[in-house]
């Protein structure tokens, strides 16, 4: 559904030129061309599509079968009537058979669900928004990623997309995991093999709210019973128990119904106790033991009591103490319960059962013990293994250990982000924390030192559930949409690293008008771990993150970032403006708070020296007001020269500045660093004022207050800089000679509306506004142009353009316009279109189930990398390339290896600690040895590293070659071990 636009060249002849003779020459040339009239040009341009069927039938096929929902199609029938309109439902799958391929996504965001320790504490199972990932606690490496088809691809129109609500380890068979999705699908996964993702059980409910799993004696056999908290009507919910049989029949045993909307369900002691929390009420259910054996779930009967608690419950933990009965059975002796609340208090209910009204022995008022240290909601509270301590955490980024006997608190302060979940390991020797910056760590309880650290990609996501903070009305509101693109760039010297601008966790960064992103995360896509975080704008993790009025402290937002061509320098732009609530006393005259805030805006252009070894950054220069009029002006774009160490920036003051390094001088002397190395400083070497549009065409009057948009692009040889700049009523592309700073040419009327991106690729200029225009600079004519569909303001921000010089192609990504949704919230989708620069037929049209927040060309290979709003990374490659990017090697190798080689070899094959396969393997050959020792004794890790780190993941040799290399390493091993 590609619409060809009439090339816009009509106004060329009337254009006024600012520079002398060469321009007039060009002008004459253009006038000559003008004689051929636009009509003939149109004919010319539309010719290829007409002639193609005759010349090459296959190309036409792809053109027919491809269809983009991004571009307008209203003229389609008229221009190209023989194209079929595909029906609306097929928008999601790739209909493309051409050279381009999209990989499976990697990464994702950890959900607010307790991470799960395997029983031997060797693995940590973390629930992500689209997958379950198994990590080894010994070396923090990803063992297995079990992808779950959470978002059903065929439910295109549905906005409230399903999400995972709970996951729990099977109580009777610890190799299995139960995962519940909000739409009623329940997976029964074997996490040691990854089986079971394809065949979920489905229960017929409106919405699943929570789920717990207990092992219950059914016919003298331990079997898993799932307690599912599900929505019944708008204001009531049910707890239903299922076992495997009941799941197959889709009919469980209704245990309890309430008129409130409970959000939490916990159970303990083999299902003898279940606790549900609904706003300010707790429902405690105890199993009625009738003395007879339970034959099926239908025999489970519970007695429920409910009582009010002082505050909104955000989290709870049960600690039952069991005792053996005379008959040899087990019964609950007493139960301790702790709840964390939305206003920061923690309430401890000791020996709760005896205080319940139904209990005949001693009924009394239920009086909890209150512990209050947290300023905001308690995100998680847990009992320690021995019950003497409570461990709690929240947005203060402090882990608090409460010694219950003495009331003494101990703190582990200044963690990197809000503590979301705390889990005490089965043996009680370590705590697993899940933090809001998409990381998880395992702390040993003795030294409180991290033994495992898992750091995922930290980009902003559209979350499924509101944060626990938002249960209470606060003076600020967190943002539930993504309004600004993720600022990201790849490291030119280390292609496996990408740099993302992130905040101190998702919640902390979505508190202002725009996300505050003062940190730079270095993310290694080959190992899929965050390598490090550097503060590149003001941030202080050790200071309180809220004011005394309770408002969050807004940190600066990085708006642009660019590496120099050799990767030695990084330029970044960050913006901060005081929140409007602070500015009431500063109002004078007729100014609005918005204007006052703008006047006090702090915009810094910073230049960093990048250490080649560890990608650490050293601030070299900070330019306070790089672009200014009477106040600091927004910097619209920063680009780097592809040839030399030089940057160019464009601001809303209409000036292009070139920045270059020079030796740092102190009083005329070259200053040196501590090791005697020469220090450099960056300064503006040239400033070019762009001609205002009004000067070009007198007819158009534009007030200086109209917002301007703009973008910059260097030509590939760095000799020319293209600057697109102007108000949305008419932006101009200015061609600047980078050596002299002279304006060589101005090209008006290439864009429509706001400029969103400009790129140069050989002689073509690609301009993205409301149109996508490809313009040939040398022949001075438009090659082709598409019109983008009208989109909302936020969607405009999320339109991306990226160019890959290796494959001479460019990619455009934009949210799919959705009439029922103004903002980019959960459920919004994106589409990505890849063009080769010479052909106006798209190479690939692909719909993504999430909004693409950033797209960047992959370094040194022909492809693109996209980051989406679920914190996933996709790689888009030409299939000629061997781009097995981001695939956990464990999975691939295991799949292939089973057929090829004996499993023993495989087990040790991947460096990513596939001990699990080892176990399988060991069973096969009946080995007693500790597999891990064998693993280490045979092959030194660096030998494996040599193979796997030879190239970044997506540029690596075919996986088969890698396999044989690895197999070669192991082939010397005697097979009799």
């Amino acid at each position, binding site marked *: 559904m590609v619409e060809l636009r009439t090339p816009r060249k009509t106004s060329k002849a009337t254009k006024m030129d600012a520079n002398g003779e060469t321009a007039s020459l060009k002008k004459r040339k253009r006038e000559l061309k003008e004689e051929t009239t636009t009509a003939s040009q149109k004919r010319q341009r539309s010719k290829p599509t007409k002639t193609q069927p005759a010349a090459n039938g296959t190309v036409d096929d792809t053109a027919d079968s491809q269809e983009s929902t991004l571009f307008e199609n209203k003229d389609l029938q008229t221009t190209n009537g023989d194209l079929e309109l595909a029906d609306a439902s097929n928008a999601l799958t790739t209909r493309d058979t051409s050279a381009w391929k999209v990989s499976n996504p990697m990464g994702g965001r950890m959900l607010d669900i307790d991470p799960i320790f395997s029983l031997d504490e060797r693995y940590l199972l973390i629930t992500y928004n689209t997958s379950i990932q198994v990590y080894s606690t010994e070396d923090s490496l990803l063992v297995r990623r079990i992808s779950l088809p959470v978002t059903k691809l065929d439910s295109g129109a549905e906005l409230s997309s399903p999400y995972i609500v709970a996951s729990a380890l099977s109580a009777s068979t610890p190799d299995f995991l139960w995962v519940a999705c909000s739409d009623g699908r329940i997976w029964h996964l074997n996490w040691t093999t990854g089986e079971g993702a394809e065949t979920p059980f489905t229960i017929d409910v409106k919405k699943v709210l929570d789920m717990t799993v207990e092992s219950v004696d059914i016919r003298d056999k331990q079997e898993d019973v799932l307690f599912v908290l599900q929505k019944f009507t708008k204001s009531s919910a049910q707890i239903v128990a299922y076992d495997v049989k009941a799941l197959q029949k889709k009919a469980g045993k209704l245990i309890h119904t309430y008129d409130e909307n409970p959000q939490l369900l916990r159970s303990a002691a083999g299902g003898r106790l279940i606790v549900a929390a609904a706003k300010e009420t707790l429902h405690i259910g105890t199993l009625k033991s009738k003395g007879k054996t339970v034959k099926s779930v239908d025999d489970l009967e519970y007695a429920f009591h409910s009582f009010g608690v002082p505050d909104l419950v955000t989290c709870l933990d049960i600690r039952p103490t069991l005792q053996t009965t005379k008959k040899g059975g087990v019964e609950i002796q007493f139960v301790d319960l702790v709840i964390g609340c939305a206003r920061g208090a923690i309430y401890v209910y000791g020996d709760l059962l005896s205080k319940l009204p139904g209990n005949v022995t001693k009924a009394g008022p239920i009086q909890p013990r209150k512990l209050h240290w947290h300023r905001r909601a308690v995100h998680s509270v847990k009992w320690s293994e021995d019950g003497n301590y409570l461990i709690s955490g929240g947005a203060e980024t402090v882990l608090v250990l409460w010694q219950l006997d003495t009331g003494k608190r101990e703190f582990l302060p200044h963690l990197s982000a809000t503590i979301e979940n705390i889990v005490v390991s089965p043996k009680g020797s370590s705590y697993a924390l899940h933090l809001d910056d998409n990381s998880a760590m395992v702390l040993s309880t003795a030294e409180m030192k991290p033994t495992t650290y898992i750091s995922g990609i930290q980009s902003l996501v559209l979350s499924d559930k509101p944060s626990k903070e938002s249960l209470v009305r606060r003076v600020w509101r967190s943002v539930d949409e993504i309004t600004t693109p993720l600022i990201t760039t790849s490291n030119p010297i280390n292609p496996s690293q990408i740099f993302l601008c992130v905040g101190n966790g998702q919640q902390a960064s979505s508190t202002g008008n725009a996300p505050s992103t003062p940190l730079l995360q270095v993310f290694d896509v080959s190992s899929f771990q965050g390598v490090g975080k550097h503060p590149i704008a003001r941030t202080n993790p*050790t200071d309180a993150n809220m004011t005394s009025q309770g408002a969050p402290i807004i940190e600066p937002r990085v708006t642009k970032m660019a590496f120099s061509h050799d990767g030695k320098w990084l330029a970044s732009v960050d913006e901060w403006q*005081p929140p409007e*609530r602070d500015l009431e*006393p500063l109002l004078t005259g007729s100014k609005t708070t918005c204007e006052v805030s703008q006047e006090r805006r702090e915009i810094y252009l910073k230049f960093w020296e990048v250490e080649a070894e560890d990608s650490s950054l050293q601030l070299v220069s900070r330019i306070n007001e790089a672009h200014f009029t009477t106040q600091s002006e927004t910097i619209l774009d920063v680009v780097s020269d592809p040839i030399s160490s030089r940057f160019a920036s464009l601001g809303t003051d209409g000036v292009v500045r070139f920045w270059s390094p020079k030796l740092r001088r102190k*009083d005329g*002397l070259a200053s040196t660093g501590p090791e005697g190395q020469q220090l450099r400083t960056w300064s503006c070497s040239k400033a070019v004022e762009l001609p205002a549009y009004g000067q070009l065409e007198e007819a158009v009057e534009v007030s200086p207050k109209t917002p301007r948009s703009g973008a910059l692009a260097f030509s590939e040889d760095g000799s020319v800089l293209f600057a697109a700049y102007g108000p949305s009523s008419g932006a101009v592309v200015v061609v600047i000679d980078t050596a002299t700073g002279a304006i060589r040419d101005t090209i008006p009327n290439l864009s429509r509306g706001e400029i969103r991106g400009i790129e140069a690729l050989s002689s073509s200029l690609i301009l993205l506004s409301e149109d996508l225009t490809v313009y040939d600079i040398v022949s001075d004519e438009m090659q082709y142009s598409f019109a983008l569909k009208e989109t909302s303001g936020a969607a405009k921000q999320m339109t991306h353009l990226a160019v890959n010089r290796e494959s001479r192609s460019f990619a455009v990504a934009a949210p799919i316009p959705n009439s029922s949704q103004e903002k980019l919230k959960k459920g919004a989708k994106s589409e990505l279109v890849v063009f080769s620069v010479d052909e106006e037929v798209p190479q690939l049209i692909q719909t993504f189930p999430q909004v693409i927040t950033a797209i960047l060309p992959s370094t040194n290979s022909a492809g693109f990398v996209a980051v989406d709003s679920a914190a996933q990374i996709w790689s888009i490659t030409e299939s000629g390339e061997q781009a097995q990017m981001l695939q956990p090697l464990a999975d691939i190798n295991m799949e292939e290896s089973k057929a090829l080689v004996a499993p023993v070899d495989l087990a040790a094959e991947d460096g990513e600690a596939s001990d699990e396969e080892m176990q399988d393997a060991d069973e096969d050959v009946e080995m007693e040895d500790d597999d891990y020792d064998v693993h280490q004794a045979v092959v030194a890790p660096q030998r494996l590293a040599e193979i796997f780190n030879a190239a970044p993941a997506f540029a690596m040799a075919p996986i088969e070659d890698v396999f044989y290399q690895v197999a070669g390493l192991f082939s010397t091993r005697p097979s009799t071990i």
Partner: protein
Amino acid sequence: MAAEVQPLATLKLPTVVSPITAEQRYWKSFKNQKSHTSTAAWPISHISFPGSSNGSAASHSLVAAAKANDLFAVTSGPRVDIFSIRKRELLKTIGRFDSEAHSGEIRADGRVLVAGEGSGKMQVFDVGTGTRAVILKTWHIHKQPVWVTKWSPAELTTLMSCSDDKTVRLWDLPSNAPSRMFSGHQDYVRSGAFMPDRNNLLVSGSYDSTVRVWDARAPGGSVLTFKHADPIEEVLPLSGGTTLLAATGSAISVLDLVAAKPLRLITNHQKTVTTLSLASNGRRVVSGSLDGHVKVFETTNWNVVSGSKYPSPILSLSVIAYGAGHEDRHLAVGMQSGVLSLRTRLSGASAEKARARATEDALMVEGATSKLAKIDQAKAKRKRNAVSNKSMALLGENVDVIIPTDATNSAGGRKRRVKLKPWQRDFREGRYAACLDSVLDFSSQEYQPVTALSVLVALRHRSALREALEGRDEVTVLPLLKWVIKYISDPRYATVCVDMAFQLFDIYSEYVGGSTELADQFAVMTGKVSREVEKAQMAIITNGMVESLMIGGTEA
């Protein structure tokens, strides 16, 4: 993991007025000016000391000799005065010249002196013994005035001369005739030098505007010629022997002998540059000019790092080094008016002593005994530490592990955690008002305006400025107002001061009626701001006028 608590970082302000640099401080430390007027106020034409042409090239015996030397020679009119470097006193005067003397140069061993004169005679005097100088040797080969006589840095008996008869000659002390004569200059030769490290190379500069390099081994004329626009007044080879400076007119040209091309033209002087001298072991070059300026250049990019002005045109100067380290000792400048200015820099221990004495004197005058006692205490502590360190150092020779004391661990020990200052702790713990009070206190020892500014900016970032300003009484609000009044005119402080002033007006304007002090301060502030506004308007008007002139200029 848990991050370490960092104190609030101080802002780095853009530099407005250039502060005094270390280099300037160094050249300013040439103090204790001693002026010596020559007899009959003859202009001081030459100042030299042995090894001034850089001792690095000299043989060991010469270096040793130069170390022992304590003499420098000042030529003025028909006399050569010999001074002591150590005592800065005139030791003896040689007046046995028929006409004007030139270029009195003492040999590196400090025993003999050579000088040329207007008649063309060259004489060698014994200066080592006695009060009267004995003439050891006289040559009268040059028929025109001899302007340069220089001892070879490598051999004790070799010297060169340059004369107005357009020749450069090389002499051996015992022989009566020159061992070599170089001709080729078209005009008076007024400057010359041996190239250090290249014993056979000589360089000369002439009024025919050329600098010529001669090789004693090669027959014939000059091996290298650099042509300039103006007469050459002075040549100065740099140590290393590849770079050469030549004073040509009001400029100094930097010549590279290896590449045989000029590197650079330094045009910092307004009038003819008359003299050049090396300083700081060859890392700096000092130039003097008829415009009365002495400028100090660094030798990599030839930037001026320091400078000073003298009352009369400068004819000669020398930075006299002394002692084992060849440290700069005196800056000797000879002027047209016949005044020799000697400025001396105390070095090392003596400088320290002088400083301590000065402070003690000053305090004694004031009668501040308590402060004196403090200084004494500090001195005693330093001494104790030094003693304990010394004993540690001695211990170190036969023990394996040295446990550092407080004083020693700063060098290589582990990083000590920085203790937060009271105001930093106040800031961290949210007592913003207390923090602001302590950083705005003018009378405090640690008061620094930039600290106050850092705190205020941080308060703005933390949305806590109003909180810090609220709830004060008359006594506690006045310091804030005074601070604002003091700094509101500084452009670097203006934005923060304006915000603060707005907030103060907003909070406290209702109390103005009840407090005259407050009303006064607000009035002062208003006055200051309106004066600033007037200035700004004036600046805008001026800018407008200049702009219209500029437009007129471009159109014309």
